[in-house]
């Protein structure tokens, strides 16, 4: 199903659109501006290449030449960047540009789609996630995920939280684990008197925080969020954003969002994806720009990023 091969050099050379895209990538040696972006961000060290990891934070993911195909059709092409530990990284871009595909390749959720194949490498703390000896189930234990639509299990609130620790065989006082996860998910006050009630009775925003708390219950190192607030009202969205700030001193967060204000508000780093149409008319996604969020929004180095973040396209 999965092949790890060298990127096809010859084909990338032959494609005119591709070399142009490559030329427009941010210059490799552009210095970081030495100023933190989000709250709690330590100053960046000068001379850091934007494509590489931030000096004050080790990389949790290093993505190299990552291409994902569905049934042979390219969905994401040649993504290269490193995602920092304990920071919030936003993936923005128009619909169909491969953000969700990309984020699902970080915890091997694409394995669940039989036709999906991945080329290139994703290193998680240095370990290649797609190496043959890696068990995708073990990967997902460490890297949690929150989906676009809240997907609580049709069980009680308590059992929703306890499901992860139970299937992982975690030892300890389950009541305590459930309370801790709900507190970290900022849901304890609302849920503590109705732990035995079905989670379907909660509001959409509560359900999504339950899903975040559920992901936190297994104590993951990373949480991937695929448009976690797109189905929620602004108040619920705000609560989830507050929650992300609280979480980021302990977990790394990668968030896909269509909402640029949200990306600007919450993230430290931003990757901008765009749709590229190749010679045959097939559309796939590519990473155009990856940099500190403030730079991406105020001083983008690529005109396509600028057009998108200023609302001219997209």
């Amino acid at each position: 199903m999965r092949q790890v091969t060298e990127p096809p050099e010859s084909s990338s050379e032959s494609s005119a659109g591709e070399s142009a895209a490559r030329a427009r990538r941010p210059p490799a040696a552009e210095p970081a501006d030495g100023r933190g972006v989000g709250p709690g961000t330590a100053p960046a060290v000068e001379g850091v290449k934007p494509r590489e990891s931030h000096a004050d934070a080790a990389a949790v993911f290093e993505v190299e030449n990552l291409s994902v195909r569905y049934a042979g059709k390219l969905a994401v092409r040649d993504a290269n960047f490193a995602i920092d530990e304990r920071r919030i990284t936003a993936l923005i871009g128009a619909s169909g540009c491969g953000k969700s595909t990309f984020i699902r390749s970080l915890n091997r959720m694409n394995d669940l789609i039989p036709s999906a194949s991945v080329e290139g490498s994703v290193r998680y703390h240095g370990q290649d996630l797609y190496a043959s000896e890696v068990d995708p189930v073990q990967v997902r234990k460490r890297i949690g995920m929150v989906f676009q639509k809240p997907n609580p299990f049709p069980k009680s609130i308590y059992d929703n939280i306890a499901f992860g620790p139970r299937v992982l065989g975690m030892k300890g006082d389950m009541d305590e684990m459930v309370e801790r996860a709900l507190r970290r998910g900022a849901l304890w006050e609302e849920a503590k008197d109705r732990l035995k009630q079905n989670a379907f009775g909660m509001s959409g925003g509560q359900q999504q925080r339950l899903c975040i708390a559920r992901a936190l219950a297994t104590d993951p190192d990373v949480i991937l969020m695929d448009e976690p607030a797109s189905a929620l009202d602004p108040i619920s969205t705000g609560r989830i954003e507050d929650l992300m700030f609280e979480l980021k001193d302990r977990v790394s967060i990668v968030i896909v969002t269509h909402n640029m204000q949200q990306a600007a508000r919450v993230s430290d780093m931003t990757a901008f994806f765009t749709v590229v149409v190749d010679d045959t008319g097939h559309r796939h996604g590519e990473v155009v720009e990856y940099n500190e969020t403030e730079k991406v929004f105020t001083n983008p180095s690529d005109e396509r990023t600028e057009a998108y973040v200023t609302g001219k396209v997209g």
Partner: protein
Amino acid sequence: MSVAEAPVARAVVRGASSGARVREILFPAALLLCIGFAMLTLVVLLVDVAIDGIPVLSVEFLTSFPSQVFPERSGIQSALVGTLLLMVVCAVFIVPVGTATAIYLEEYADRDRWWNRLIEVNIQNLAAVPSIVYGILGLAFLVRGPLELGRVVLAGAFTLGLLVLPVVIIVGREAIRAVPRSIREGSMALGATQWQTIWKQTLPGALPGIATGVILALSRAIGETAPLIVVGAASFARFNPNDLTSDPFSALPIQILAWVQDPQEEFRTLAAGAILVLLALLLVMNAGAIYLRNRYEQKW
């Protein structure tokens, strides 16, 4: 109101021609007539059976064994016990086999493989195979042939099980498919294995649907007569089958058939009573299926 608007208003009033209005009434009337005819047939049938059968019904009728000589002392105990045993053994057989097959086809089978498609097509076709064919299969492979079970409850129940298994599988697959993908993904994203996801999320979510399918399959099996005749169910069993693997057995449809064919009027009346008992069992099972569906079905 200006004059210019008047023709527009009239056009609205006379919008439908009288022909169209007649058709508008005739079509639902025709539909009602069809429903009425179907219902009337059913009601006549039920009333006719009830008139004949109700006087027969009594505790003695349920607890006596059939007699070939005295209709007034004849009962259906052996047939009723035989039918109930058939249903229990059949359920024990079809629940695990049907559920496991449905899980395999929905969760594991790669549809690009020809053998999986072959299995699917076969199951669809098997659901439409006449029941007598299953009876012959049961006779050749279960009663005689390789298994040599003899004319016993086990052979009858397995034959009926094979007959209704496609229904269980098809309904089970639908129930499993109705569990949203997002639930599976949520479970897998937490680090659950595929088996943990199936066992703890998919299957509990699909269980009401699977149970409904099993009950509906059993309600089909309970009335089947032809396969039981072929596998050799007894028309007059004067004792209950105490052993599933060695004693001969009877069943309600077989008993009804035997009585209906009897030249004596008194025995033919007993058939109506047995039909009422069979209908009552059927109604209870279908009511159970409806209850399960309404009470436990998950709204996603």
